[in-house]
């Protein structure tokens, strides 16, 4: 990414506006505020409660192109105690959305592992939506040595 100081400053000011209008083209990154907004949407106006969700990421990722991530929620996965979905967000990527896992009674457990790209050091947030409408979250910071956005 070729960027001089002036560009960098201008970008910082413009980034929020870019992300808001969804015009995240190339250099604009999402921010923690964008992610918070999405969390509030999922939770219906307030922030999801911390807890119940277990998000496991490496503390330091040498290669941002493939960062293993594991997420799980304690749940019986039957009757009223069901996890509908878990969504992962990365607040320093060009687009904050990473993945949404959908679970059913046949899943047996609310648990999934995958590998994601991280552009730089940032927070990863997992939000779980339960069948009764309640939401829970967990947040972890991942330090990235080599970014994964091909910039």
């Amino acid at each position: 990414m070729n960027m001089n100081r002036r560009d960098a400053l201008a970008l910082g000011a413009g980034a929020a506006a870019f992300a808001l209008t969804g015009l995240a083209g190339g250099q604009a990154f999402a921010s923690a505020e964008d992610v918070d907004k999405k969390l509030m949407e999922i939770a219906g106006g307030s922030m999801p409660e911390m807890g119940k969700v277990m998000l496991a990421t490496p503390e330091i990722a040498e290669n941002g192109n493939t960062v293993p991530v594991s997420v799980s929620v304690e749940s019986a996965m039957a009757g009223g105690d069901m996890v509908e979905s878990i969504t992962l967000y990365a607040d320093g990527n060009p687009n904050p959305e990473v993945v949404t896992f959908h679970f059913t009674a046949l899943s047996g457990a609310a648990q999934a592992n995958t590998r994601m790209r991280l552009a730089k050091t940032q927070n990863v947030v997992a939000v779980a939506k339960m069948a009764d409408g309640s939401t829970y979250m967990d947040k972890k910071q991942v330090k990235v040595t080599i970014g994964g956005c091909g910039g």
Partner: protein
Amino acid sequence: MASKPRVKVPKKAAPGEVITIKTLINHKMESGQRKDGDGNLIPRMIINKFTAEFNGQPVFSADMHGAISANPYMEFTAKVEQSGTFKFTWVDDEGSVYTTESEITVG
């Protein structure tokens, strides 16, 4: 574009057991953020949907975005009560569909 998907499902399980399933498909998952040699943005081309079914019933699915690594890997669980067939489906931005099936004996 994508090659033969690989899945790992146990061959046998006890009724009601929660098994772990691992899947991997080769796909470059072009994020839409990279530029080619001339500075033009390379259009996004990723697998955006993965689903797992057991005997026609949904088990697990994932909506993927550009932040999923190349050759997307998915590990998840399934509760099996009887023998049957798992069907795994991947769909990419061009609408290409990749599927594979895997049988399990329960009992």
